């Protein structure tokens, strides 16, 4: 663990990303303390105001404080991103590992299931599910998580297929390691880096998908703010052209968070690889 942290720290970009991410997470957690206004209180006399001392990021078309909405929106966008990737990664990891390791009929069944999930039109399924269960943040997480497991599953299956035939796995078998130990101790650590990269990309795309679903009224129901529905509110041309304070903050927030997560993912991948401390090993 110590070495892991040392390797991670060496990557300055990843460290910066981690700091920014922590900052965003903290600001989302402590939003009630940090927000200068109630994010949902409309003030129609104060619509479309540019940034001022009272409203540092200005107000939106209903006179709500953009900074407050941004802070509260972070709660929803970040948790949707992390939880839905958590769900898809867990399902994908288990199914992909089983498919790749055992092969045969199990593999066929799981992979055809993945094909089925892939071939469902995402939006139609999402609309159906939220029509049945109603739009809510938890349903959004579930939908995104359950619909995106085939990606990590396929990735992991491919890695398992490749690693299963290596000599060190044969060695582990001959040395008496049981299948669980081979899967989790020998193969998984070596299959981790592509999975990690796909997970970080998944967080980014989940944040963006949440924005899309919110736009259709299927994600986080208004008036609760999320970065996605803030962006979508700013879609009219006159806002895009004349009131950049409405879309720059949430847009920048999505951009910076996605970028940071990708840097952290890169850093984690390198930190998981013991080959990276070549220099330190030869002391």
């Amino acid at each position, binding site marked *: 663990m110590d070495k892991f942290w040392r390797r991670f720290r060496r990557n300055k970009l990843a460290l910066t990303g981690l700091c920014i991410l922590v900052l965003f997470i903290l600001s989302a957690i402590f939003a009630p303390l940090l927000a200068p206004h109630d994010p949902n209180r409309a003030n129609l006399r104060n619509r479309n105001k540019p940034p001022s001392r009272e409203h540092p990021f200005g107000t939106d078309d209903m006179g709500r404080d953009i900074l407050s909405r941004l802070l509260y929106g972070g709660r929803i966008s970040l948790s949707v991103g992390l939880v839905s990737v958590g769900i898809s990664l867990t399902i994908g990891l288990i199914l992909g590992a089983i498919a790749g390791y055992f092969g045969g009929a199990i593999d066929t069944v799981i992979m055809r299931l993945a094909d089925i999930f892939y071939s469902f039109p995402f939006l139609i399924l999402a609309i159906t599910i939220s029509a049945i269960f109603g739009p809510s943040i938890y349903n959004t997480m579930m939908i995104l998580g359950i619909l995106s497991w085939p990606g990590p599953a396929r990735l992991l299956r491919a890695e398992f297929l490749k690693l299963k035939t*290596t*000599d*060190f796995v*044969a*060695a*582990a*078998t*001959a*040395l*008496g*390691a*049981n299948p669980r*130990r081979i899967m989790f*101790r*020998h193969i998984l*650590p*070596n299959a981790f880096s592509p999975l990690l990269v796909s997970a970080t990309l998944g967080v980014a795309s989940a944040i963006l998908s949440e924005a899309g679903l919110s736009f259709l009224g299927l994600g986080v129901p208004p008036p609760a703010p999320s970065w996605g529905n803030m962006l979508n509110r700013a879609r009219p041309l006159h806002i895009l052209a004349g009131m950049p304070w409405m879309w720059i903050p949430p847009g920048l927030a999505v951009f910076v968070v996605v970028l940071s997560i990708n840097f952290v993912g890169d850093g984690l991948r390198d930190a*998981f*690889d*013991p*080959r990276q401390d*070549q220099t330190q*090993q*030869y002391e």
Partner: protein
Amino acid sequence: MKRESVLLEVKDLVKHFPIRKGFLKRVVGQVKAVDGVSFTIGEGEVLGLVGESGCGKTTVGRCILRAIDPTSGQLVFYSNNGLVDLAALSEDQLRPLRAEMQMIFQDPYSSLNPRMTTKDIIAEPLVCIAGMKKKEAEERVAELMRLVGLRPEYMRRYPHAFSGGQRQRIGIARALALNPRLIVCDESVSALDVSIQAQILNLLQDLQEQLHLTYLFISHDLSVVEHISDRVAVMYVGKLVEVADTEELYSQPRHPYTERLLAAVPVADPKVKRGRHQLKGEVADPANPPPGCLFHPRCSYAQDICAAKQPELQNVGKDGKEHFVACHFARELELQGVQAG
């Protein structure tokens, strides 16, 4: 020649790999990687197993350790707890027996998990089979590292920090962890530089004497096999063609294939003329073997019977010595060997 008691008896070992084709993955043929191989290894003996690429040497080794499951045949192992047929055991029944037989792999780069420290790699069998805790295992790991000529201080390093020869030593230490009796060395030195090869070979020999080990030494390198083996078995397309004591096999081969193999060993003398005995043609396809003797299409001594009837492995040794050959003309042919080195 030490031949006290039998340790492993391989009886009619067969491993066929099915060839599947089409949408329904129907079996359209069999690759006969190992097709009826029988031999014995005595306690404390080094048996060399040689042959060209793809002749099934490695498959034999892996079947014995049940890294792959044989199609049929018996693997009678005289374990510490009595006789067992390794081929008939389930994976769970096999696990305790794995302490008594281990493997040293060919490629020291791919046979060590790059994400595990040296300590964890060597401790693997201690943890998996002996059920040791990590702390207890550490002492044994240090002892093993010293035994194979590595410094125990390095046990926290990852494999990438070691050279090829050192990595192979790690592989050897791992194989020795539980005091096995039988070790299958699968091309254990062929991936190494010649200078390192000699070191590892000597290490293997020292360990064998010191710990009274039994080796099945699989290699395509005849000079290496000659150096280390008490007896040598020659394989061709999944079958044994000749088994004899090393000295006898090298000086008086009885199978034309062995003669050709020996003639192909490089000689470090540019003046030595060759070419007369070179092997011609391709190795027979194990999915579609020729009728009769598998070697007859390439054999310059072949006659009609060779294409019609498959020769059995028979003992043609003189003076009570064992010398098994599978050739119709084993007794008649005058074949050329090499000077014992």
